[in-house]
């Protein structure tokens, strides 16, 4: 294999953390699962560990090194590490680099004692070529033969015993999705680990150079009669996959089907998640009330109830949407459609300097930018990967939804359908503006066009199985929680402290105050957040809003939807007793600048705020994830300044020019 220098940022910190722990180095033996993308490797990992791992039918979805212990029923425990799929040892993505490093024994903490190579039985030549690169390491190895159920569809048959004899390496047929053959595989692996001498095998002695390697593999397969290909050339027209492809990649119907699937995906994210979101909202507010009730009234109880529980709750309500997005994406991946979607949009995306594989991150970005940034790891070229990450904050994530709902409600009172249309326009614009930004950057700044290779496998269509899909959904969703949870907790705690403490503020911890639903009113006026808001007030003038909205904008950096709860606090507080009875919308409409009768929320300022939220990168969790994925504070910082700056400038320009045109 080629030696590949590791670019900075190529390794991902999460995998590193997981793997740096001391057990990896000592006993039990470390067994790595390797294979070409889509070989069914990760499903196998699931079967062997009984754990939750990411498995999908979209090439290259193993985005981290996941590891687990083998199930107890397979005897003494082994440590299993799932490596990202490797297509080739040249022109590789960071993931492939990582796999190559581990396989070649160049990784600093994961050193395999043995390897399982997943080999797709329907594509023996290609997968055995990869297996031969692994065999050259002369480590104990077992070939796990997957996709046996698809053999009849491709009119081939494989004789496992003959294959084993021809390769000189143990071969065990398995089905990772059902667990069939897993026990057999583990026994064979144990035998391989126990036998000390690892001699030469026909597989290891295959040439490294691809052309002669493929020639030798074919000779090996036909000479030994391990593979019978009854009708090699017929499968083009008649296979199930070909027939489905003719419909979903149809010249006329291809795009309508694609858009119908996307619309279905998004509408179910919003509609199906609603009841769960209400439930989570209720649970968090009950918990907050309970904490206030049982803990002695004071700063600590309010900090826990409002800062921690309230802050985390504001973000946790989006979790159902993310779970549903992951579930549907996993279904699409497992069925094989997602790779087609990526192929469909490759042309327009590559025109913008992106890649067909940018499609999945962009799609996820409409739910949440954090999993989207993580999904960008599968994009092979660094330039395209960074450009994709750069535009992801523009995708209209679900945290913006409550903000838009509030602002559109204020802008277009009493006409739900108008607000709905406007929301649709905002979503489509976010995609178009994202395309514009990507196109401009790739043409003007990254002028050197090193077009990358697409060469993307279109896997055979398979019916997804419910249980593995649910397992994968849960593993991705919980990984998201772990990843995003900490920054959200830290940021919302900090913001609570900022909004509740200030120079010379006293903490009146009366019982009534403590039970106020969110941040207690009397503190806000004298808090650091208010100070900050008042310092910022001159800069808010062009946007036509006062410091109270400014506090909302600052608090929205914890998560955009926090803007809504902050508005609820500041505008209940500022009004007289009667206004407390009014709804937030009415309060906002009635709100005026201090000491004048000029209203704050007018057509122009609301439009300005919508534009601000459209562009601004008000999500410190995203900044943190971008930093860790790009390994660059500069990139993340620049992105934050770029979008927040654009948001501010465009929003101010809009408000000023609308006012010049005579709009209030």
């Amino acid at each position: 294999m080629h030696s590949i220098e590791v670019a900075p940022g190529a390794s991902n910190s999460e995998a590193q953390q997981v793997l740096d722990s001391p057990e990896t180095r000592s006993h039990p033996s470390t067994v790595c699962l390797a294979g070409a993308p889509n070989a069914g490797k990760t499903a196998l990992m699931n079967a062997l560990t009984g754990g939750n791992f990411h498995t999908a039918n979209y090439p290259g979805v193993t985005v981290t090194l996941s590891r687990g212990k083998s199930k107890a029923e397979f005897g003494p425990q082994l440590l299993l590490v799932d490596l990202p799929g490797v297509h080739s040892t040249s022109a590789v993505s960071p993931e492939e680099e990582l796999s190559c490093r581990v396989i070649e024994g160049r990784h600093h903490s994961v050193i395999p004692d043995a390897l399982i190579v997943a080999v797709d039985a329907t594509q023996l030549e290609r997968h055995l070529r990869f297996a031969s690169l692994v065999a050259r390491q002369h480590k104990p190895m077992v070939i796990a033969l997957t996709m046996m159920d698809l053999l009849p569809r491709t009119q081939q048959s494989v004789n496992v015993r003959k294959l084993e004899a021809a390769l000189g390496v143990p071969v065990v047929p398995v089905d990772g999705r059902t667990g069939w053959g897993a026990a057999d595989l583990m026994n064979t692996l144990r035998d391989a680990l126990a036998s000390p001498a690892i001699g030469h095998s026909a597989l290891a002695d295959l040439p490294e150079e691809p052309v002669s390697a493929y020639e030798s593999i074919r000779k090996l397969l036909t000479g030994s009669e391990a593979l019978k290909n009854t009708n090699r050339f017929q499968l083009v027209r008649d296979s199930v996959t070909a027939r489905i492809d003719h419909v979903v990649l149809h010249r006329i119907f291809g795009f309508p089907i694609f858009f119908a699937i996307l619309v279905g995906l998004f509408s179910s994210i919003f509609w199906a998640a609603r009841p769960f979101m209400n439930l989570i909202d209720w649970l968090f507010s009950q918990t907050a009330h309970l904490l206030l009730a049982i803990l002695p009234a004071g700063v600590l109880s309010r900090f826990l109830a409002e800062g921690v529980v309230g802050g985390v709750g504001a973000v946790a309500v989006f979790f159902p949407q993310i779970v549903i997005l992951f579930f549907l994406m996993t279904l699409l991946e497992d069925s094989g459609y997602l790779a087609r979607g990526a192929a469909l949009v490759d042309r327009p995306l590559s025109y913008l300097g992106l890649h067909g594989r940018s499609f999945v991150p962009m799609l996820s970005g409409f739910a949440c930018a954090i999993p989207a940034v993580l999904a960008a790891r599968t994009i092979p070229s660094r330039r395209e990967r960074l450009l994709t990450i750069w535009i992801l904050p523009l995708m209209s994530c679900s945290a913006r939804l409550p903000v838009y709902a509030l602002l559109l409600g204020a802008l277009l009172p009493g006409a739900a359908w108008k607000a709905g249309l406007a929301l649709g326009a905002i979503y489509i614009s976010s995609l178009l503006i994202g395309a514009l930004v990507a196109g401009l950057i790739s043409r003007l700044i990254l002028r050197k066009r090193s077009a990358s290779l697409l060469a993307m496998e279109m896997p055979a269509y398979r019916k997804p199985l419910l249980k593995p899909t649910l397992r994968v959904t849960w593993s991705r969703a919980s990984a998201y929680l772990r990843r995003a949870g900490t920054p959200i907790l830290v940021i919302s705690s900090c913001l609570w402290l900022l909004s509740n403490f200030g120079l010379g503020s006293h903490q009146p911890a009366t019982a009534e105050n403590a039970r106020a639903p969110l941040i207690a009113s009397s503190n806000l006026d004298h808090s650091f957040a208010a100070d900050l808001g008042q310092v910022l007030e001159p800069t808010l003038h062009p946007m036509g809003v006062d410091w109270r909205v400014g506090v909302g904008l600052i608090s929205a950096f914890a998560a955009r939807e926090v803007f809504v709860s902050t508005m609820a606090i500041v505008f209940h507080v500022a009004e007289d007793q009667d206004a407390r009875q009014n709804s937030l919308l009415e309060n906002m409409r009635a709100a005026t600048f201090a000491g004048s009768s000029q209203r704050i929320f007018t057509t122009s300022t609301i439009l300005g705020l919508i534009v601000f939220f459209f562009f601004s990168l008000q999500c410190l969790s995203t900044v943190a994830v971008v930093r860790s994925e790009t390994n660059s504070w500069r990139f993340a910082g620049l992105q934050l300044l770029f979008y927040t700056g654009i948001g501010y400038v465009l929003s101010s320009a809009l408000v000023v020019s609308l006012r010049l045109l005579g709009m209030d």
Partner: protein
Amino acid sequence: MSLLDALHNEWYRVEGVAGPDDERRRLLDLGITPGEELAVVQSVPLGDPLVVMVRGMRLALRRREAGWISIQ
């Protein structure tokens, strides 16, 4: 001729693979080697990429990549 001139669902033999070193190597690694048979099985609505069947795999290739592959 190049793969771009191939009729759909007809088998051709690969004559050679050109292109920049890394990309050429990757296509060879994927099994598009001289002497191997392949067929264009599907085009995508915008005409790019093409879906090629080679060594039992469906592979989406951009027209630019397909242009590097000469066939007979």
